C-alpha cells in the first residue's frame, strides 16, 4: 500500500488489541481531569528527596493533581506532609519552593507555618497553634484544636525519597505499591545516604504520558547518537523490560561503553554501591516517575501534569552524601554530560515529545499510536508501554485503544477481537 487516504489513515492498525492506543488518551481534557482524580490523587508520588529538607523546620512545597502540598521536617526530624492550604480562608500558607520555618516571618513567629493573610499559625505536626484574636471572633464556637491542617500520607522510602499520597484510604505502603519494581536498585540506593546535587525543570506542551512512554521504551535510541555509539551491541539488545504489579516496569542493565563517545570516560571508579561498573538500570513507576541509575549518578524525573497537553518535568540528580568534593564534581560531570540541561541526551528527548505534543494537542484529530513491537521483552520491545496502558485502562475503566469503551471490554476480550476483525475487513474494503 502506498500513502493512505483518510479512512485508511484513521483505521485501526493491523495489530492486536493492546498493541496500539488512541491518541485521545494524550489529548482529551476530560480524560485528563479523570486521570487527576482517579490516578494521581490515589497514587504514591515521590515529591522530593529528604536531602532537600536536611534540618528541623526545613520545608519544601509542590503540587499533586493541582493540590498544593507542603512537606516539613519536624523538631523530631520526622518528615510530614500536609495540604499547603490554610483552613481559615483557603489561602496558600507557604509560597516559597523551599526554606526554613526556624526564623519568623512578617506575620508569624519562629518554628511555625504561618498563613500571612490572617496570621494563623501551625506547628510542624500540622496542629493549629494560634488563631489571631480567637476568642474575640469565635468566642467558644471554634477553637484552634478544631482547625488543624489536612495531613497527608507520607513515607521516606527508597534511598530517602519523600513519597506522598493524597488518598487517606490507600491500603498499601510505598513498598507494597512498588510491588518489587524498586528492588533492583534498593541495595544501591539504601546502602548509604544520598544527596541531591541537581535540579532543573522543563515545561513541555505534551501529555505527561508521552514523557513516561519515552522513559519506558528504548526503541528511540535512534534519537540519541550517544546511546547508539556507547550501547549497540549484543548485551544491549538483550536488556530485558520487566513489568510489575501496579503498572511499574524495570529496564534491565548492561555495561555501557562510555569511552566510545569522544570526550567521555568510564564511570567505574564512582559506581554506586553494589552496582556493577558502568551498569545502567531504569525504573518507571506508574503513573509518571522515573529512576535512572547510570553507574555514578542517579536521575529522577517527576512529572506534574498541568493539562492534557502540558506537563512539567522536574529533573533531579543525586550522588552519595559521603562524596568528597572531587568525587562530587566528577559525579556531577557524569550526570550533566548526558542528562544536564545542556547535556547530550535529555534535550533530544524533549525535542521528540514536543514534536509528539504538536501532533496530539487538544483539538487534533485522534490517531493510532503503535505500541506493538515484540522482541522477547528486550530493550526495543514495547511491552513496557503495553504494561503501563493495561494498568491505566484498569484505573480509568477505559480502553486505551478506544477510550469511550470500558476496559473490561478490552484487550484480548471477545468484543475487542471482534472489533479488530471488523476494522480489518473495513480496511481491506477501503
Amino acid at each position, binding site marked *: 500500500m502506498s500513502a493512505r487516504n483518510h479512512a485508511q489513515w484513521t483505521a485501526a492498525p493491523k495489530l492486536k488489541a493492546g498493541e496500539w492506543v488512541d491518541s485521545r488518551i494524550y489529548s482529551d481534557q476530560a480524560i485528563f481531569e479523570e486521570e487527576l482524580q482517579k490516578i494521581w490523587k490515589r497514587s504514591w508520588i515521590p515529591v522530593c528527596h529528604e536531602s532537600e529538607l536536611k534540618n528541623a523546620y526545613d520545608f519544601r512545597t509542590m503540587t499533586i493533581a493541582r493540590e498544593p502540598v507542603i512537606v516539613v521536617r519536624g523538631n523530631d526530624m520526622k518528615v510530614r506532609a500536609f495540604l499547603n492550604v490554610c483552613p481559615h480562608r483557603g489561602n496558600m500558607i507557604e509560597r516559597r519552593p523551599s526554606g526554613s520555618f526556624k526564623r519568623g516571618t512578617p506575620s508569624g513567629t519562629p518554628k511555625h507555618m504561618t498563613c500571612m493573610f490572617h496570621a494563623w499559625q501551625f506547628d510542624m505536626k500540622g496542629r493549629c497553634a494560634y488563631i489571631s484574636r480567637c476568642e474575640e471572633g469565635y468566642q467558644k464556637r471554634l477553637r484552634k484544636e478544631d482547625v488543624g491542617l489536612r495531613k497527608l500520607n507520607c513515607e521516606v522510602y527508597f534511598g530517602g525519597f519523600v513519597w506522598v499520597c493524597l488518598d487517606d484510604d490507600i491500603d498499601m505502603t510505598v513498598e507494597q505499591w512498588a510491588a518489587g519494581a524498586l528492588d533492583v536498585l534498593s541495595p544501591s540506593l539504601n546502602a548509604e545516604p544520598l544527596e541531591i546535587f541537581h*535540579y532543573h525543570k522543563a515545561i*513541555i506542551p505534551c501529555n505527561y504520558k508521552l514523557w513516561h512512554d519515552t522513559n519506558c521504551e528504548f526503541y528511540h535510541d535512534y534519537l540519541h547518537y550517544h546511546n547508539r555509539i556507547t550501547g549497540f551491541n549484543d548485551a544491549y539488545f538483550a536488556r530485558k523490560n520487566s513489568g510489575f504489579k501496579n503498572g511499574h516496569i524495570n529496564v534491565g542493565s548492561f555495561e555501557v561503553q562510555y569511552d566510545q563517545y569522544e570526550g567521555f570516560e568510564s564511570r567505574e571508579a564512582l559506581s554506586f554501591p553494589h552496582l556493577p561498573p558502568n551498569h545502567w538500570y531504569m525504573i518507571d513507576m506508574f503513573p509518571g516517575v522515573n529512576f535512572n541509575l547510570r553507574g555514578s549518578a542517579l536521575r529522577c524525573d517527576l512529572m506534574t501534569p498541568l493539562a492534557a497537553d502540558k506537563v512539567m518535568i522536574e529533573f533531579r540528580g543525586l550522588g552519595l552524601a559521603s562524596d568528597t568534593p572531587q568525587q562530587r564534581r566528577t559525579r556531577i560531570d557524569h550526570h550533566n554530560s548526558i542528562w544536564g540541561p*545542556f547535556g547530550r541526551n535529555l534535550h533530544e528527548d524533549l525535542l521528540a515529545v514536543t514534536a509528539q505534543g504538536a501532533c496530539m494537542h487538544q483539538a487534533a484529530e485522534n490517531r493510532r499510536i503503535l505500541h506493538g513491537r515484540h522482541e522477547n521483552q528486550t530493550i526495543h520491545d514495547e511491552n513496557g508501554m503495553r504494561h503501563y496502558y493495561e494498568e491505566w485502562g484498569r484505573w480509568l475503566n477505559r480502553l486505551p485503544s478506544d477510550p469511550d469503551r470500558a476496559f473490561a471490554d478490552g484487550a484480548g476480550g471477545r468484543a475487542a477481537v471482534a472489533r479488530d476483525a471488523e476494522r480489518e475487513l473495513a480496511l481491506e474494503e477501503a
Partner: protein
Amino acid sequence: MSVNYAETKEAVKSLIYQACLYQDDLNWDAWLKLCDADFQYRICAYSPEIQADMIYLSGGLEDMRSLTGMLSKHNSDHSPLRRHCVAYQVTVAEDGRSAESVSSVTVFQTQLDGINSHVDAGESRLFLVGRYHDKFSINGGDIKFTERTARLDTRRLDKGSHWPI
C-alpha cells in the same frame, strides 16, 4: 611597563562582545580561538528549590572543542539564540597581565522549529537570564579568556539548550 587601563578595559569588552557574536553564529572554532589553552567553562545556577549551587555544564578547552565538534551528530533545536550582553564591570589587574569582568546576559531564541513551525517560526522569546563572570590573561595586546562562568537565574530550561551559552 606602563598599563593603559582604559584601553585595556575597552579591549576586554570588545573580546566579550566578539565571543557573543561567534557563539550566536555557532562559530565554535572562532569562539574557542578567543580562549587560553587553560580555559575553563562553566554554566552554573543557584537553586532555591534545593538550596544548592549547581553546575549544569563544565569543561576545559578540549572538552568544549569535543562537545561543539559533536553537535552535528545530535538532534538539536534549530532555533537560533541571540545573546544580549552588557559588560557592567571590568577590572584590570595592577600589573596589567590579567582582568576580570561581570556582564549581564539575556539570551533570546527566535523560533524556527517552535512547537509547530508553521505557527511559531519567526517569534522571538526570552530563553534565559544570567550573568557572565569572565577572567582573562593579557599578554601585550593579546587578550584571551581563561575562565567563563555563565551563572544563570533561569532554572526552567525547555528544549533548545544543546549549546554552550
